[in-house]
């Protein structure tokens, strides 16, 4: 980080140039330029090396898509895997069993728990406590650091029991799981989840006292929504609680545009930026939160609709409570009723004896799941040999980019003349961090038009 700081406070000229924003996933720069009190430049530049995933997918077998796209991102590996598996099933016309879907929801909650707690404690809390990272807190607040790591470890263990590992899950594939989670593992996980309730209460007490920056800017909040539950795994798309759009028609709802300073596209709805992620889900689906999560939001003072982007982190904490309680409920169901192994276990690829015998129809599969940072879309077209001819992945961070820049454009004039350049730089960093940007994901990049 090299904030180009000036000693002179309250200047009319401000230049914020954060090269390699820290405590985010991936490489991004923040550039703000104010001359004579006028904002001339305000960009969040994604400078991660391009990775060409959508080009890499072309000509690969649809059965490989989950393995490859999981590698787009280490943090969101389970989300990418599930979006990929659902899109693959949509293209192939495969329907997974109810037990499989139950386990997938559990994995998705586990990932939200894991990613949210990492963001809350390791990436955001240091700003609120005036330190540069969690490292100094190991000395000053060891019990809290240990608690954060324990919560992280629980959610990570969930990935391990369910999928073999959290980062690049092994057993979740098209049609089901390659292996049942072990009974011992499930029982241990259930116990750890119950233990996490205490850490959750403690965390709520800590965050209730922390002060987040004040800033209001209503925007368009997009997320999945479902009549049945607080949507993560399935649903239709809604904006600010309005009418529903089928996931299949996502391209009619929003458009993506190329900008030359960034390796990621800017997405808009009705030519205006929009937000995805915990705060959008919270605003659209507050009523569907479980009782404990609603109580947590009351305790934290978070009300829907909330228009302060800094409070995305608080919405994540409310979702932590929701996902923990939902996971405990699913675990109780599984431990009581068991799972039907015959309906869950499949092989990751067609068996050798079936190769050459399977008939594929050219088709396009589209799917969306809610991952920690927002709505994630995967789309694949396959040919008559089951190979991918065109792929598109729409990433939450890309969708948030335009909204973050709009926030920055509105925030800079509000603090200009009131804060020093250094303080403004920190404001901008915290704002970007509150979106929990995942830049590795965002540079998967653009559509592949395969000719």
């Amino acid at each position: 980080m090299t904030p180009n700081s000036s000693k002179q406070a309250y200047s009319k000229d401000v230049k914020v140039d954060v090269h390699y924003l820290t405590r985010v996933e991936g490489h991004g720069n923040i550039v703000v330029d104010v001359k004579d009190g006028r904002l001339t430049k305000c960009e969040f530049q994604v400078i991660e090396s391009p990775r060409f995933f959508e080009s890499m997918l072309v000509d690969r077998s649809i059965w490989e898509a989950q393995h490859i796209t999981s590698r787009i991102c280490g943090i969101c590996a389970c989300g990418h895997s599930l979006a990929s598996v659902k899109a693959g099933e949509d293209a192939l016309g495969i329907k997974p069993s109810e037990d499989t879907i139950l386990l997938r929801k559990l994995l998705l909650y586990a990932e939200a728990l894991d990613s949210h707690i990492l963001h809350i404690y390791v990436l955001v809390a240091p700003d609120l406590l005036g330190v540069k990272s969690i490292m100094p807190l190991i000395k000053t607040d060891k019990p809290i650091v240990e608690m954060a790591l324990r919560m992280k470890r629980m959610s990570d263990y969930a990935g391990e029991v369910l999928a073999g590992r959290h980062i690049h899950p092994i057993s979740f594939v098209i049609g089901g799981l390659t292996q049942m989670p072990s009974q011992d593992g499930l029982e241990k996980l259930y116990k750890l989840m119950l233990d996490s309730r205490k850490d959750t209460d403690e965390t709520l007490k800590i965050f209730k006292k922390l002060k987040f920056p004040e800033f209001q800017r209503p925007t368009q909040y997009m997320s999945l929504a479902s009549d049945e539950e607080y949507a993560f795994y399935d649903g239709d798309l809604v904006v600010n609680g309005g009418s529903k759009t089928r996931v299949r028609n996502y391209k009619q709802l929003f458009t993506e545009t190329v900008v030359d300073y960034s390796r990621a596209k800017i997405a808009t709805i009705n030519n205006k930026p929009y937000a995805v992620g915990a705060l959008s889900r919270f605003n659209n689906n507050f009523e569907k939160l479980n009782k404990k999560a609603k109580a947590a939001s009351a305790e934290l003072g978070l009300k829907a609709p909330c228009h302060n982007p800094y409070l995305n982190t608080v919405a994540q904490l409310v979702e932590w409570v929701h996902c923990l309680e939902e996971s405990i409920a699913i675990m109780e169901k599984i431990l009581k009723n068991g799972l039907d192994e015959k309906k869950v276990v499949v092989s990751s690829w067609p068996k050798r004896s079936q190769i050459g015998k399977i008939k594929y129809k050219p088709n396009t599969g589209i799917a969306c799941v809610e991952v920690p940072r927002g709505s994630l879309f995967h789309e694949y077209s396959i040919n008559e040999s089951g190979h991918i001819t065109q792929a598109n992945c729409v990433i939450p961070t890309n969708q948030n980019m335009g909204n973050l820049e709009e926030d920055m454009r509105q925030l800079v004039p509000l603090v200009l003349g009131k804060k020093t350049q250094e303080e403004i730089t920190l404001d901008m960093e915290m704002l970007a961090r509150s979106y929990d940007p995942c830049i590795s994901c965002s540079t998967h990049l653009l559509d592949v038009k395969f000719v």
Partner: protein
Amino acid sequence: MRKPPKPKAAFFDFTDCEGCQLQFANMGETLLELTELVDIVNFREIMSEAGEDYDVAFIEGSITTDTDVKRIKRIREKAKVIIALGSCATIAGVNGIKNRSPLDLAKQRVYGDKADTVNTIKAMPVHEVVKVDYFINGCPVYIPEVISVIKCVLMGKPYPVPNYPVCVECKMNENVCRYEKDQECLGPLTRAGCNSWCVNYGNKCYGCRGLVENPAVNGQKDILLKYGLKIEDILNNFTLYNDSLGEKYDPEFK
């Protein structure tokens, strides 16, 4: 007796998913123990402090741009020890699939008419550009192996990456052979060290740790042919992770 100074460690990521660094964060209490032995001075993903004085550099990701090349050379000048972390750094990983098609086509597929603005070169493992002292293979890295390697680094000993196939560990774990289950698997050709992680969870080996030095290519070829698979299918399996080695292995199959 005075304790010797703690070595300073830094983490740098290049082109990748950052999952291997996250494996460190997932160590939980072990990470706290590690910080008693090593000073972590630079870890952008979780820290704002950016120490430029370090002894050991963990390098995650592949080298895929001219900027990457310059950056890794600068790090090599400063670091006493370089550790390549994960498949992208050790064998170019899935990034290597990009090398299968001409770069211009890949750029055009992804960036359309903005293709010319994109800076990209062939995806390379770190050791193709600078000397690497330790290799931790795997996508993602396997924490017990990471800890073994760190012990070796602290003791100043080399860490020999296993040069026998995953099958050795898989047999010890008493897994039923994938071929017996009417499936295919790259275990017979892939370096061990992961404790046959993917097969333990019902999947097959995808070759993420790279190939053993003298793979029994003919043996594997016989197995696959016996089970009715075409050479092209086999080669496509290898290209998932081992494309930077593709030129070396393709001719052996042809």
